[in-house]
């Protein structure tokens, strides 16, 4: 099969660790140009340096996805530097679990800001360019929690349900422009996500649950699979999880 990844300009939010970092490495190794967005500039600059030393083209742009202007700036930098944007990977996410009765309202706000608004800002930044190009691929990250809900993870689950609805609705709207949309829903993957939990007892339980977590490379392969298909094939949804994860 032809390598449909080579030469594509891929913008990745949350690129400083976990899924975003693994995907940047995997796609860069296959010849994609990666534009890295995250708040931790030092981390993405180090990553960009590493990719460059392996012959990869990349750019690091400090980005907080809760700030619309910064997300617009991230995509703008991709256009200014590389002339186009082929893939927008809305990956940045937080998962500060807690039962509602603990009233961790600040955590709820942060999840809504990063997990929902961050995705919408990514779409707002990339869509005009993709419509003008009449090509492009918007990939958003939901979760197994975007398909069901369990006690203690309600707001997170709500945000991930929202991502799935946004991606599916976007899919239906962008057909006239030939754009592709994918929503990827991972189960437990070994990332910093559990570190975003602010309640010590919940954090401990979640870490135990993450004993079975699989490598972020599993996510990177899912992204590469979706991007790598022929232009007229639209991988709309991929749901994957550790074989041992029941929930």
């Amino acid at each position, binding site marked *: 099969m032809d390598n449909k990844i080579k030469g594509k300009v891929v913008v990745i939010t949350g690129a400083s660790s976990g899924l975003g970092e693994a995907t940047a490495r995997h796609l860069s190794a296959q010849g994609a140009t990666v534009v890295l967005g995250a708040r931790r500039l030092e981390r993405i600059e180090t990553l960009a340096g590493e990719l460059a030393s392996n012959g990869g083209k990349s750019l690091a742009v400090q980005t907080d996805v809760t700030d619309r202007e910064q997300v617009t700036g991230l995509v703008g930098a991709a256009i200014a530097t590389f002339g186009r944007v082929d893939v927008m990977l809305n990956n940045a996410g937080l998962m500060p679990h807690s039962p509602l009765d603990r009233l961790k309202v600040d955590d709820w706000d942060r999840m809504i800001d990063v997990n929902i608004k961050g995705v919408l800002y990514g779409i707002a930044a990339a869509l005009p360019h993709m419509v003008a190009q009449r090509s492009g691929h918007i990939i958003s990250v939901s979760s197994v929690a975007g398909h069901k809900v369990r006690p203690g993870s309600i707001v997170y689950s709500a945000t991930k349900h929202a991502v799935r609805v946004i991606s599916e609705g976007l899919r239906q709207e962008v057909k006239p422009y030939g754009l592709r949309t994918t929503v990827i829903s991972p189960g437990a993957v070994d990332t910093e996500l559990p570190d975003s939990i602010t309640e010590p007892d919940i954090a401990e339980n979640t870490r135990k649950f993450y004993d079975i977590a699989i490598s972020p490379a599993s996510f990177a392969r899912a992204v590469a699979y979706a991007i790598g*298909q022929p232009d007229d*094939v639209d991988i709309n949804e*991929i*749901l994957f999880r550790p074989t041992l994860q029941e929930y």
Partner: protein
Amino acid sequence: MKMQDLSGKVAVITGASSGIGQATARLLVAEGVHVVLVARRRDRLTALADELGEAATVVEADVAAPAQVKALFDQVRARFGGLDLLFNNAGIGINAAFEDSTQEDWKTMIDVNLYGVLNCTHEAIALLRGRPGAMISSVSSVGGRYGVQNWSVYSATKYAVVGFHDALRKELGPDHIRVSVIEPGAVWTEFGQNVSEAMKERREKLDALRAEDVAQALVYAFAQPPNVLVEEILLRPVLQVAP
């Protein structure tokens, strides 16, 4: 970060005489897998096996007939001692408004699309146990997620497949047997009886998926490491909006 090496694995493919089954057989053989080709049309299977050479075995069987399915898996056990992949691909769709449809057609679809999956899966589980990365994958449809007019009974069988898989995944996960489902939109295959000219035109207009595109989804899922379970892949032609 390469995919798993699939060489030496054994796969049973139902509905292997055409379309997605045939394309999958070709792709798996290219990855070094031995494929057991299952369908009712022996002549078609033989032609495919001739093309694939030693990497293919032909077994004529109707997945809706429990005795034939049992004989199929007895043969797999005797010849290979186990199984790495069951690809439940055989399926039938008969297009009709429900009011005008016949009980005979309902039975045909339920027998192949649901009983076929149950018969094969029931026989395969023992053979899959203890094989690293073993997987059961079935072809459902976007019709297993959304009801489509004139496909009501077909849709019912595909919803059944999705529900069956969600439960089966939880039963077999602890045994490290992966359960996966692929939900394609419009595909260019022989699939669909009584399909109107209008629907054929629709497939053309949508620039429907090639059978190879669906086969690629199966290979992607199967080639993941044993601890990674790709539970669901839903794919459509870029131009397909509904369902």
